[in-house]
């Protein structure tokens, strides 16, 4: 029998792991080091995506589909990582994505840098727990310092210029920086349109991002209304309706279908005829009810019977069928209509209203979409993304989402820190300073934390083609000498390294979250000292 075992004080074997050929075990420093190795490898992959001059990655799925992206969370989640520690990093960037929506690359790079530093400390013989304690203390200092260096940016519904600049910072690293201003403006406008300023809350459900290949990125537009990827149910219905009164239905134009199980038996000719009469009348009643409540267009979640469809056409009622659940809700919100589950419940008040509803057609393949504009309620918007190929449209959608998240974060909390790694550098200085005052062994770990923070500006400089060490030491000395915390790495080669003047802002909460989450994860990885992997039987 193969097993890992030790012996007790009487020399009797004591089995720890049974059937070793099916399991593998790593323990102690060896385990920690192998974890650090894996994490570093992952971080190295996304490292080159950081910053405005970062590059993209191609990800090929198991089915051969291609994703081209600059977004850390997207890259990480599609890499199909098998390693456990790698998976933790994927989770890390995902949680940053869920919570903040931006800074998903930065967090992975930071975690990787922290682990790299931890490795050196381990080599010096410092216990992993002491390292993680030191990181914890350093992180607290850094976060406190972030608060200190943060600035409040004033914004109001009329003056959104600062929000716009933050959105630009987020979009800077993406391919859409081709139409930088336009996309940033779309992100700001979309968020402000749906934001609840009193509660400081933004409901992302109200913003729909719809993409269609064709045209170019600059054709992307914000529509104050809803776009539904459907066409009118009958080819001969009018393609444009002005001053639409829309009935939003979730019941099919079909004979009623009771939900309880039932059986209807026809035994005589009379019954047969009556049933047919009933059927015809149902259709007529349905259409009449819709017509009577004053609607001039119908949106329905379900399908129509051919007969009903033809009746709708005869009664000059254009209709859209098979409208999906989320779309029908958006439509209801946008037009101030109510979703009506039964024909009997239709009434004038429940109708939605919109200025125009029109069918838009694209290209040569008879692709249509229905645009609902000038709605009663402006609180539902759609961003319509165009681009030359499928991959670019997808990437533009992701980038817009990130930018919108940044704007949302600022509405929730309008404090910002300066980008271009200015915040990281100043935190690094602060941590280093504090470290000298710590008498215990943790000061080593704290210094390492500071060095890990330095990796971010170095990576930025490297990706921008600047000499990393030189740039970092220059900026650092400038910050200390002048006491200005907004100096950072001048990635775009503009000659100014004050990020305040370059308008490179990041939301404070995003940066803080990066520090906290990365430290937390690193602590977790350092605490693992034993891994037992069950292999699959077939291997």
């Amino acid at each position, binding site marked *: 029998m193969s097993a890992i075992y030790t012996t007790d004080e009487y020399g009797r074997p004591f089995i720890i792991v049974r059937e070793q050929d099916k399991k593998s075990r790593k323990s102690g420093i060896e385990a920690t080091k*192998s974890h650090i*190795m*894996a994490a570093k490898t*992952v971080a190295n992959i996304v490292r080159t995506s950081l910053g405005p001059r970062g*590059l*993209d990655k*191609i*990800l*090929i*799925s198991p*089915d051969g589909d*291609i994703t*081209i992206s*600059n977004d850390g969370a997207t890259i990480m989640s*599609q*890499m*199909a990582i*098998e*390693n456990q520690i790698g998976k933790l990093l994927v989770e890390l960037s995902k949680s940053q994505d869920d919570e903040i929506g931006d800074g998903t690359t930065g967090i992975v790079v930071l975690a990787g840098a922290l682990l790299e530093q931890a490795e050196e400390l381990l080599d010096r013989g410092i216990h992993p727990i002491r390292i993680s304690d030191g990181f914890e203390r350093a992180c607290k200092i850094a976060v406190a310092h972030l608060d200190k260096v943060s600035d409040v940016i004033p914004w109001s519904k009329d003056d959104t210029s600062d929000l716009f600049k933050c959105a630009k910072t987020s979009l800077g690293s993406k391919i859409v920086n*081709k139409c930088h201003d336009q996309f940033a403006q779309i992100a700001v406008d979309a968020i402000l349109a749906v934001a609840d300023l009193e509660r400081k809350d933004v409901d992302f459900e109200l913003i729909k991002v719809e993409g269609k*290949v*064709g*045209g170019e990125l600059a054709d992307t537009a914000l529509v104050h209304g809803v776009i539904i990827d459907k066409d009118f149910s009958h*080819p*001969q219905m009018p393609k444009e309706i002005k001053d639409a009164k829309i009935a939003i239905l979730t019941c099919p134009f*079909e*004979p*009623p*279908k*009771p939900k309880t199980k039932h059986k*209807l038996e*026809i*035994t*005589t*000719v009379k019954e*047969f005829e009556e049933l*047919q009469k009933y*059927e*015809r009348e149902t259709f007529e009643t349905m259409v009449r009810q819709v017509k009577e409540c004053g609607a001039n267009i119908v949106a329905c979640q379900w399908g129509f*019977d051919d*007969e009903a*469809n*033809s*009746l709708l*056409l*005869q*009664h000059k009622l254009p209709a859209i069928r098979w409208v999906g659940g989320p779309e029908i809700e958006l439509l209801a919100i946008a037009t101030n209509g109510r979703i009506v589950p039964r024909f009997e419940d239709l009434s004038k008040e429940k109708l939605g209203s919109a200025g125009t509803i029109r069918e838009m*057609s*694209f*290209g*040569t393949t*008879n*692709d249509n979409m229905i645009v609902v504009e000038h709605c009663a309620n402006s609180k539902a918007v759609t961003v319509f993304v165009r*681009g*030359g*190929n*499928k*991959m*670019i449209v997808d990437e533009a959608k992701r980038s817009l989402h990130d930018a919108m998240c940044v704007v949302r974060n600022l509405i929730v909390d309008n404090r910002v820190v300066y980008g271009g790694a200015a915040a990281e550098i100043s935190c690094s200085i602060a941590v280093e300073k504090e470290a000298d005052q710590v008498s215990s062994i943790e000061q080593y770990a704290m210094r390492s934390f500071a060095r890990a923070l330095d990796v971010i500006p170095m990576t930025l400089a490297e990706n921008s*083609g600047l000499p990393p060490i030189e740039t970092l030491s220059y900026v650092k000395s400038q910050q200390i000498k002048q006491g200005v915390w907004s100096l950072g790495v001048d990635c775009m080669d503009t000659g100014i390294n004050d990020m305040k003047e370059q308008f490179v802002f990041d939301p404070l909460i995003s940066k803080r979250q990066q520090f906290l989450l990365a430290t937390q994860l690193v602590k977790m990885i350092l605490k693992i000292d034993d891994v037992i992997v069950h292999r699959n039987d077939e291997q």
Partner: protein
Amino acid sequence: MSTQLFNEGATEERAENARLSNIIGAIAVGDLVKSTLGPKGMDKILQSASSRGGDGLIVTNDGATILKSIPLDNAAAKVLVNISKVQDDEVGDGTTSVCVLAAEILRQAEQLLDQRMHPQTIIDGFRLATASARSALESSAVSHKDDEAQWREDLLSIARTTLSSKVLAADKHKFAEVCVDAVLRLKGSTNLDRIQIIKKAGGKVSDSYLSDGFILNKKIGVNQPRLIKGARILVANTPMDTDKVKVFGAKIKVSDTAQLADLERAEREKMRAKVQKIAAMGINVFVNRQLIYNWPEQLFADAGIMAIEHADFDGVERLALVTGGEIASSFDSPELLKLGACDTVEEIIIGEDRMVKFGGAAAGQACTVVLRGGTGQMLDEAERSIHDAIAVLSQTIAEPRIVYGGGCSEMLMSKAVDDAAKLVPGKKSIAMEAFAKALRQMPTILADNAGLDSADLVARLRAAHYDGKSTSGLDLFEGDVVDVVGKVTESFKLKRQVLLSASEAAEMILRVDDIIRCAPRQRRN
């Protein structure tokens, strides 16, 4: 110490390797289709792996069709295939040009990368270049929509340009007329489903024609009139086999055969009533999307009505458009129903098949092109060519501006980019010059494909442009630089889309520095 990070079978390519693999992939795709470019381009035979027989065989000159059919494994190559597909959906033609241009841009970028230029700097230069190329293209575009004769001449010229690189080149004048007439009948709609193309093997290609009426590839019912003048047509989508009870859960249950017979009779009566209702509308032609069973067919025959069954979705929709009728599914309120009308409905024979022709239609917003040709492959390719031409024309009607072809617009843009590059400080200007060079590759390829001395011709073309003759282009039949106004015309929308898609794709590919390929999914048979 090494740790396995990815799934087994996954691979990663980094930095230089990734870039190299992308650029090589893109250039390979560009080179693959480049020989089909232009009026003297060659065709390709595509044979699918599954069918070794004749039926899987395609002979084509159409970039999108070629690229669609090749299974590619390279990521960058897939991006190019995608832009070509988008070009096909968006404009209908220029599918080869867009791939070739993107590949040429990347070929130039590769040299810059070799000189250790940062990809982002190259991209910045390319963006400036695209912007100046675009504005040059826009300012050179003209529209003659107000002048009817000139407008038609433009459309014909665009159609000829598109067709000249296809199999129909020999009869391009004839087919250009056919396409322009067909598109003008749509009255501005871009819905190409309204133009039906009927392919019939046999006869010569030049026997093809645009029918003055609308042809439905269906048969008329038994014992019904074969020719109707002054037709009043009802276009319907309704079951004419048995009218099922639609109420859910309904089921017929009888206890004896007499009852069954009664019910059967009731069913027949219902159908008779339906036919009578339809007949009472005063129609003499009835076209249904669904089946018509023998019994109602016979009833229609008795009423002297021509009934056509099983006209599919497109057929019914087109017919409704042609005759101006509405597609009906309920017949209880005839006063609300709009009937279609046309002068004659008759059975005609094309080749060996019988079809129904609707002549002298009221609305006439759909039409039929009948294609004849020697072989199936020939017909298929002819159809693709016609489709491309029609697509471009319909887009031109929506966006009436035109530009000049024969390498003229490319040279124009290249000149504009070169001029702009001189004013840009820094490394970006080198990238702009490279972009201009990529644009100049297009006329070079055109000339090469025609077997001409490209170096000489393109140099002369460039000289002509710098000499202020901004409408000079290549005449590939004469092998000379000429003024192409009125000779080779192309749609502005097409050229713009080619430029923008190609540069967007090139930019996207250049930005990549890492390729991660997941392990292919295991397929079980």
